[in-house]
């Protein structure tokens, strides 16, 4: 493998795996994409390049540089190919804001989205939905402040926070579909509704964003597995 070759180990339904691919596309970089069929077992390459977590995505640059954790990979792509369009803002204050919201989405918001599907009972489900809606209200405000009237959190172009948040849109839409509700709403989050369409149709995004129906089918499969594991655990 040439020293400048790039490989990405990913999985099509994973929002985290989308992130490096969007970043590479923004920088107009070619790369080899390797689909890991996680439910069939992890490849040797994955286990070798991410021995600590054994998770996708992993970016392998050249023959000896594996990089793990999606947001760390995105920052790496931005810094290693600094001549392309910038992904992170240049101002330290704005960088801190972008990093803050990305961490919030990963640590608090998306786990709440996931928990809607497997919530035990109506109360738990309502609480999860409330958290998700609260988060969207926060993100609408953040979008207003960060975009400064332009189309993306990053301004004129897709940036770090667009990638971090936008990668969750597929699963957000699946959640809306499964629960017959609107979470992104023209009334409550008008800015985000328009931003979401803009993001999903962006050249760097549209080929890596999974189709909502396909994702919904996969979602049913995952929920069934989680429920079965839960039931099995309760039997012991």
């Amino acid at each position, binding site marked *: 493998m040439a020293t400048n070759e790039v490989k990405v180990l990913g999985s099509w339904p994973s929002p985290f795996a989308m992130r490096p691919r969007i970043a590479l596309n923004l920088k107009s970089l070619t790369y080899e994409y390797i689909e890991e069929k996680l439910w069939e077992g992890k490849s040797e390459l994955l286990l070798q390049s991410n021995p*600590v977590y054994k998770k996708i995505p992993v970016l392998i*640059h050249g023959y000896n*540089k594996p*990089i*793990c*954790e999606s947001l*760390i*990979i995105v*920052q*790496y792509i931005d*810094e*290693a190919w600094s001549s392309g369009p910038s992904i992170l803002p240049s101002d*330290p*204050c704005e*960088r*801190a804001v972008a*990093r*803050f919201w990305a*961490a*919030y989405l990963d640590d608090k918001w998306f786990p709440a989205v996931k928990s809607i599907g497997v919530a035990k009972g109506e109360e738990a489900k309502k609480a999860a939905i409330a958290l998700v809606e609260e988060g969207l209200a*926060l993100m609408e405000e953040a979008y207003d402040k960060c975009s400064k009237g332009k189309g993306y959190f990053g301004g004129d172009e897709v940036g770090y926070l667009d990638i971090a948040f936008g990668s969750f849109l597929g699963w957000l839409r699946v959640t809306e579909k499964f629960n017959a509700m609107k979470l992104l709403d023209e009334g409550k989050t008008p800015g985000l509704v328009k931003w979401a369409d803009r993001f999903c149709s962006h050249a760097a995004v549209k080929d890596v964003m999974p189709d909502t129906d396909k994702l919904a089918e996969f979602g049913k499969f995952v929920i069934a597995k989680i429920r079965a594991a839960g039931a099995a655990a309760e039997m012991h």
Partner: protein
Amino acid sequence: MAGELVLLDFWPSPFGMRSRIALAEKGIPYEYREEDLRNKSDLLLQMNPVHKKIPVLIHNGKPVCESVIQVQYIDEVWHDKAPLIPSDPYQRAVARFWVDFIDKKIYELGSKIWKTKGEEQANAKKEFIECLKLLEGELGDKTYFGGESLGYVDVALVPFYSWFYAYEKCGDFSIEAECPKMIAWVKRCMQKESVAKSLPDQEKVYEFILQLKKVFGIE
């Protein structure tokens, strides 16, 4: 570039210690404000409305929340003094990976050690030591994780040393016996004024934990 700098913090917080060390390493003066977490100040609630947590770094009236974000911010704004984050993109990614690992594992496992008993505590101790051993592997033969000088990973990890005595007493084990390289690295870090002045006394932290255990009704 100094402007007005305030750190809202709580003395035993390993997360607050990270920012203290970073600012001290760079010789940046700031105002330290102790928060009473049972009675959070209006300023804290205003500056961190999402999480309502310390530490919060306020620079010229603008808040920076989350300790790892603060350390990166401090390093970027005062980039000419004592750089903490590597300049090479790959070394940076590696450093960020280990800081993220420390964030995911060390605090939570440490908390389980002092909060739980029996099998849960035993499992937490085992995993905690495994994590420290992984970090020892990453350190290798280097003086610091950052090489010849204190770096991002050093700043992120060393604050937890102030809690080691409490973990050891509560968990009835010796971290030095299991991870001597880690303790040797800690001692090198503690020789630095920026670290020694930013970490509270271990006995004091242990007393604090004992108080917390009483409050939470944990034996």
